[in-house]
């Protein structure tokens, strides 16, 4: 890998920079800059406007220029922090626990499915893979979860739906294939059983896989609002993103009421809430950890995408 990179670099250096290359690179730098900025600037917009005062935002609209610095929205958010703390607690717990189980299950399944001395591996692979081609749809699954597995307002509703994914198994299987079979074979000759082989030999060799699967699962858990929407109505059991969605929607509903001319007296207290900046502050609070961790983890994602080329 190293030498390949080196050859490319040498080849690049030696290549005479020609007009066509210049044109191509000018095009490349322009387009990539534009798209890259379009991907990042909205986040900046959110962050900047969460630190402005509601009156300044009302007056100027959203802009990149911070006209009036204010922590109004944040102080309001943390005045009654109970709901945020609940949501944070739920999401953090579910993310940690769910990711650990998801990584473990996917790597274990992937390992077994690529063991060439396991006669039923193709049958089981089909058993798993078929579910990606055909499924029963939302309704039977929903009924299964609510009627028979009591998902309603229970924490396992946030945990179970994303605990296992066949795509992760496919990635794991492909990665495990690259570990020499001789390791398994020689350990078997030495009398180790399959569990020992997996835990003592294969898992320690699979850290890049575990990192990748872990990051993908953690991201899915952290960003989950769907399962809360389907199964949770109690405020103390919601996930963070669903809490954010509810916040935004209730602010929006309030605004609609005001514009429709609902009785002002009932609403007057709430209308003075800094609505727009509050939305932005909430967005920052719920997304902050991802954005802060992003520079650290994104290179593992990039690496991870290369380890499990997706072929079944």
């Amino acid at each position, binding site marked *: 890998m190293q030498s390949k990179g080196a050859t490319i670099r040498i080849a690049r250096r030696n290549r005479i920079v020609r007009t066509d290359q210049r044109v191509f690179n000018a095009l490349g730098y322009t387009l990539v800059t534009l798209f890259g900025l379009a991907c990042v600037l909205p986040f900046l917009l959110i962050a900047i406007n969460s630190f402005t005062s509601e009156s300044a935002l009302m007056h100027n609209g959203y802009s990149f220029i911070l006209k009036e610095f204010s922590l109004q929205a944040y102080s309001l958010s943390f005045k009654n922090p109970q709901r945020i703390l609940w949501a944070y607690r739920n999401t953090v717990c579910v993310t940690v626990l769910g990711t650990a189980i998801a990584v473990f299950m996917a790597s274990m399944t992937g390992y077994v499915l690529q063991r060439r001395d396991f006669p039923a591996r193709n049958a*089981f692979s089909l058993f798993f893979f078929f579910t990606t081609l055909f499924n029963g749809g939302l309704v039977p699954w929903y009924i*299964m979860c609510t009627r028979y597995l009591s998902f309603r307002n229970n924490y396992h509703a946030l945990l179970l739906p994303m605990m296992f994914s066949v795509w992760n198994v496919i990635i794991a299987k492909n990665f495990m294939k690259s570990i020499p079979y001789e390791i398994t074979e020689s350990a078997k000759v030495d009398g180790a059983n399959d569990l020992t082989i997996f835990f003592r030999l294969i898992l320690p060799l699979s850290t890049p896989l575990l990192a990748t699967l872990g990051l993908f699962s953690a991201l899915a858990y952290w*960003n989950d609002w769907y399962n809360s929407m389907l199964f949770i109505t109690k405020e103390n059991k919601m996930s963070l993103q669903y809490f954010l969605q509810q916040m935004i929607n209730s602010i929006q509903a309030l605004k609609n009421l005001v514009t429709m001319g609902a009785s002002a007296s009932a609403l007057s207290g709430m209308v003075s809430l800094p609505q727009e900046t509050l939305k932005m502050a909430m967005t920052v609070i719920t997304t902050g950890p991802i954005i802060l961790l992003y520079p650290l983890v994104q290179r593992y994602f990039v690496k991870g995408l290369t380890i499990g080329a997706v072929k079944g």
Partner: protein
Amino acid sequence: MQESIVRLNRPSLWKRFMRSAWSSKFLLLMLLPSVAYVIIFSYLPMAGIVIAFKKFSYPKGIFASPWVGFNNFKFLMMSNKLAFLTRNTLLYNLAFITVEMTVEVCFAILINELISKKFKRIFQSFMFLPYFISWVVVAAIVQAVFGYEYGMINGIIEGLGGSRINIYANSNYWPFLLVLFRVWKMAGYGTVVYLATITGIDPQLYESSAIDGANVWQRVRYITIPSLIPTMIIMFLLALGQVFRGDFGLFYQLIGNNAALLPKTDILDLFIYRALASTSDFGMAAAAGLYQSVLCFITIMIVNGIIKKWQPDYSLF
């Protein structure tokens, strides 16, 4: 004579099966959690498809609910929305697939040819950032950027002397906007996938093409793009397997129940969710879900079959 002796000595099929199962008992044990999971969350719900042929009542459960034959499908047909919803779902997904793939492949090629390593790294991570946030946050961003009263773009338009545009009241903007938002969120991921494929190309190909005097366009046309085709086909097939299943997060968070936008943006998944959540019409929702699953299954089987005939290596299975 000899044959019968051999047959007598040979253990029965059942015994052989059990022996082989016993010898891989630990492997089977390791599969147990995931097999149980898939049975509970995939195969049992698959059997639950019978709901589509029943008048499901929640307290009675699946088994005790009475059969109604194809009534749910009849209702679905009679609502006259099925063709419209199917068309929307399909066209949106096809637009997503083609635009995303074009953008991703173009950016992968452009980034790969860039010289500054630092620039490459920084902008690659910029482009990947939207993939990391939820559609809830995307909806908040869209309000900040495109909102009617305070949105940044409307501020700029007014500053330039134009009149404000309310995207939340005019459905004509949305076919374009939905593709835009989807590409904005997803293109970074695909770009990274294609870039990874490009780094796997044998550098000797590029070296010898340089010696032969190929220019950059020829290099892209004859080396890079052909090397990307297998990955493109796999990504295409994976997306096609879900082509009648809309991106629920995108449509729900950005459109939701906004009646002004639904004429151009309603898809099967929104319809099913509404039937489930607001009208509790389980039977019809299940029928629509089954219809969706069957269409997806047929599509992927046919397309994968064609590709298998044409180029067996490129097929998904």
